């Protein structure tokens, strides 16, 4: 460890260079984070059994998947629960319809982990990936460590 510190010290990095490096790194990390979309992050707090945060890059995903219409994911249903073809719902958040019943899940209550919602978007992503035979399907492909 000491040898490592000494070798870093011997590099004689000036304060300005160090600040520049830190700023660049911070910028790189934050711009990366900006690309990540969370699905109703407000309903899920990290707790001792959640998996690592998923970085969903919306635009990159749609470009790669060749998605042109929003309603493939942002679907819309009528009062009878019938899918309305061609109508999208990207002005709503998923939890407006799929909030589930946080209060009914006693064991998850203390952590406010809404697994109803998580189950919904897991299925939305995975079912499409299976149908299209491309994209991640097993847990660790999205929840990267």
């Amino acid at each position: 460890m000491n040898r490592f510190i000494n070798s870093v010290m011997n590099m004689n990095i000036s304060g300005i260079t160090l600040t520049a490096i830190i700023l660049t790194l911070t910028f790189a990390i934050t711009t990366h984070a900006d690309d990540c979309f969370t699905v109703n992050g407000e309903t899920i707090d990290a707790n001792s059994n959640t998996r690592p945060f998923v970085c969903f890059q919306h635009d990159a995903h749609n470009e790669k998947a060749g998605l042109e219409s929003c309603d493939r994911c942002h679907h819309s249903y009528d009062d009878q629960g019938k899918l309305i073809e061609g109508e999208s719902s990207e002005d709503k958040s998923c939890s407006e319809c799929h909030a589930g019943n946080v209060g009914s899940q006693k064991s998850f209550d203390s952590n406010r982990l809404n697994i109803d919602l998580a189950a919904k978007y897991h299925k939305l992503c995975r079912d499409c990936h299976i149908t299209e035979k491309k994209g991640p399907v097993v847990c660790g492909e999205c929840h990267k460590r």
Partner: protein
Amino acid sequence: MHSYYSFVTGPLAWIAFIVFICGSIWRFNSLWQLTKKKDSAVFEYMDRKFALRSIAHWLIPFGSRSMQLNPAMTVATFLFHICLFITPIFVFGHVMLWKENFNISWFALPNMAADVMTFIVIGSCIFFLWRRIKLPHVKYLTTPLDFIILMIVAAPFMTGFWAYHQFPGFVSMTIIHIVSGEIMLMAIPFTKLFHMFLFPFTRGYIGSEFGGVRMAKDW
């Protein structure tokens, strides 16, 4: 990869459940018929009080003399059986899958607890393996099938640990994990893993015979 995933989580999963349930009913029935035909005295001697007394003693850690004489085995076997059942049912990834596929959910283990319990299962399997190789009285009773059964039981835990921690090749390992769980389920009716259902009957009968005929304790 997608077609493998669809197959192992779809048709193969249903086959595994059906083989497990129907196979267990068949095995139970065939053993019942065999007992009726070859050793019907079992039904005569079966006694609820003596059976329950014996089962209770053997379900309590160190509740039998044999367990007191082999403390390492006692600790290993109790921890092993508890973790073997609790971990797959309550690990968060599995709770999530029950929610997604059957819309039911229950308590989930913290990740760290699931890891520790997985280690206990794998560690106990290594201990059981060592016993089968090294201890003469265990070695004498060991057949090659016993090693295969140990592998069948340890595999879902080793692959699950691998998949969860995303070691290299974890995508294929997740699929192997699913298959290994299905193999274990399907193996239960046709191997000595069936003791999970037979245990109350074998123990109960020994307890009945010792209690009612020999007037002795069997623990």
